[in-house]
């Protein structure tokens, strides 16, 4: 993340040691991070990681038990949501069902006491920006809008508030995959176009990777890693982050003092060459992506080789995924191109040292 630091990207939001406890349960544990002006920042975590609680504190619906939330250097811990210059798009979107599309968008302007003419002009602009023809949509009932249209109305309403930071509580999660992809792209475009700071929360790392400038990965109330999506993909900090990114192989290895390690599969112990030295007796996880594994032809050279039994194969379109067994109960996932398809039941599996990484468990 050091690479992306530049003086112009000053933090707009600073989260310093923020903690939230519910009774004895700590939902968010001393979290630190900063969101930079004009960036698309995403908090990712599985359910139970505390991301929703964190978000609710950032928008003012919960108060931190301790720590500070600073907006442009000013502590806003005690500021109620209606006095914060930030705004959120809710998971349920929270569109007001008794108001028309136009009136929903105008709501924050009406609260601010703008005249109906001004409000209407602004709502008209925003609907256009979000590809909703105002002639058709301004008077439309919320109930008559499709899922995608509602997303746009919710975004228009939030933009009408003209917030310094726009928060999102996984609003796209209820949509089908195709629409979600489309709206992800639109969201990114709007963020670039408006130059607003977006702070997005989701459980899908894939979604985060597509849209974000930077991503923070949460686990059990704490942040595991922050960085650009490609940084995180290239060098996950630990096994949790690696596993969260998708299907990966993580082999538990015990160090042998030099660049070798042992993988105890119960039945037999395999000696493996490691990409880095590991002190004797220390346990780590060896990360190998499924596409880095290959079936060796007789005589082929590889950094590591392991005999396996092929259990079954699944078609992923252009690629084929294999589940292979090293020892009973210890399986690996292999992904190869369709051209390299094998029908054997026994094979030798190999990978290069450079394609593997040692991670903390």
């Amino acid at each position: 993340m050091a690479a992306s630091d530049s003086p112009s990207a000053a933090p707009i939001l600073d989260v310093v040691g923020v903690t939230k406890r519910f009774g004895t349960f700590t939902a968010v544990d001393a979290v630190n991070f900063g969101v930079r002006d004009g960036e698309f920042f995403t908090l990712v975590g599985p359910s139970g990681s505390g991301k929703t609680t964190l978000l609710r504190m950032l928008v003012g619906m919960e108060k931190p038990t301790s720590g500070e939330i600073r907006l442009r250097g000013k502590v806003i811990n005690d500021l109620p949501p209606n006095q914060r210059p930030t705004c959120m798009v809710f998971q349920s979107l929270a569109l007001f069902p008794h108001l028309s599309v136009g009136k929903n968008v105008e709501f924050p302007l009406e609260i601010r006491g703008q005249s109906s003419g001004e409000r209407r002009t602004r709502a008209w602009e925003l609907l256009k920006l979000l590809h909703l023809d105002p002639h058709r949509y301004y008077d439309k009932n919320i109930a008559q809008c499709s899922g995608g249209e509602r997303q746009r109305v919710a975004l228009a309403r939030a933009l009408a508030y003209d917030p310094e930071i726009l928060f999102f509580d996984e609003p796209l999660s209820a949509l089908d995959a195709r629409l979600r992809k489309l709206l992800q792209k639109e969201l990114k475009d709007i963020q670039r176009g408006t130059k607003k700071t977006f702070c997005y929360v989701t459980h899908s790392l894939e979604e985060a990777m597509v849209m974000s400038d930077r991503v923070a990965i949460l686990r059990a109330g704490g942040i595991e890693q922050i960085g650009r999506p490609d940084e995180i993909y290239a060098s996950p900090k630990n096994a949790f982050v690696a596993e969260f990114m998708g299907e990966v192989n993580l082999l538990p290895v015990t160090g042998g003092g030099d660049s070798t390690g042992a993988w105890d599969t119960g039945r037999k112990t395999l000696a493996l060459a490691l990409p880095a030295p590991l002190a004797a007796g220390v346990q780590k996880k060896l990360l190998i992506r499924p596409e880095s594994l290959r079936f060796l032809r007789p005589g082929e050279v590889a950094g590591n080789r392991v005999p396996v039994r092929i259990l079954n194969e699944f078609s992923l379109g252009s690629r084929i995924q294999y589940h292979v067994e090293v020892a009973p109960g210890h399986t690996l996932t292999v992904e190869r191109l369709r051209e390299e398809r094998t029908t054997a039941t026994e094979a030798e599996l190999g990978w290069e040292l450079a394609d593997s990484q040692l991670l903390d468990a």
Partner: protein
Amino acid sequence: MKTSAPVPAPSADASGSSLFGALAALPFGALMLFGFVAPLLCVVWFGFMPPKTFALLQAPTLANYVTIFQQTYFKSILWSLGLAGLTVVCLLVICYPLAFALAKIFRGGASFVTYAIATSLFVSENIRLFGWVIGFMKNGVVGGTLATLFDAQVDSLLYNIPVIVLGMVYVYLPFMLFPLALGIKMVPDQVREAAFDLGASRWQVFRKVDLPLSLPGVLIGSLLVFVLSAGAIAEAKILGGQKVVTIAADIESEFTYAQNWPLGSALSTLFIGLTTVVVFVALARFDLEKLLGKKRD
């Protein structure tokens, strides 16, 4: 809530909900304090005043309670509780199939039946009971019809105990039907289907699935009907003549004809105590909020 995480419900502190909740409950609380709690305390206190007096500030005495146990008031209490129990049983038998049909079988027809029955709630109980009088009296609609059709001479069918029960069953039917239908609606269809699929018979599904899962509805309905019919006064008077004196009628006559307010108060206190015990024992066993459908906190 929005998160599927095992996070407790968000606390109320940030939105100041706590203060507003108490504030919003205030008018209701004041109303109940003035119009419910205070009058009841008044009744309880009055029960300890010397008989046949109208002033509240005298030395307390147990004389009224002594009178109650010496005389035959326990009879009217037993009558009231007995009739109420009988009404509950009759209504359970009558309403369960109908409630089941409303919740699980009828589609458009369900709202028709619901409206048809709910509408009757708004017609004064007296008027509806009086309809039975016209139906059952000598030369009434029933008697007259039988006489014309079969030439049978029917005397008045009124003024007996079955008619009183009929009146109570009739008046309190909606109070049983709607909670029951709500309760049965909460039984998931798939659970019933799964039970059938696993080889249970119709009766077994009823016993093992429907009944236990709709129990909150059964309980609420029974409780409502029991309390309301135990305090009933009009049915026994309009349909029953003076055949049976219920406790509510006893209380009323102490206040009106006998002008013995302290005795009436003591009777009321006793009666309130009895019904409160029943209600609290039953209510302590389950959460009403579950019946309303949303499980939060």
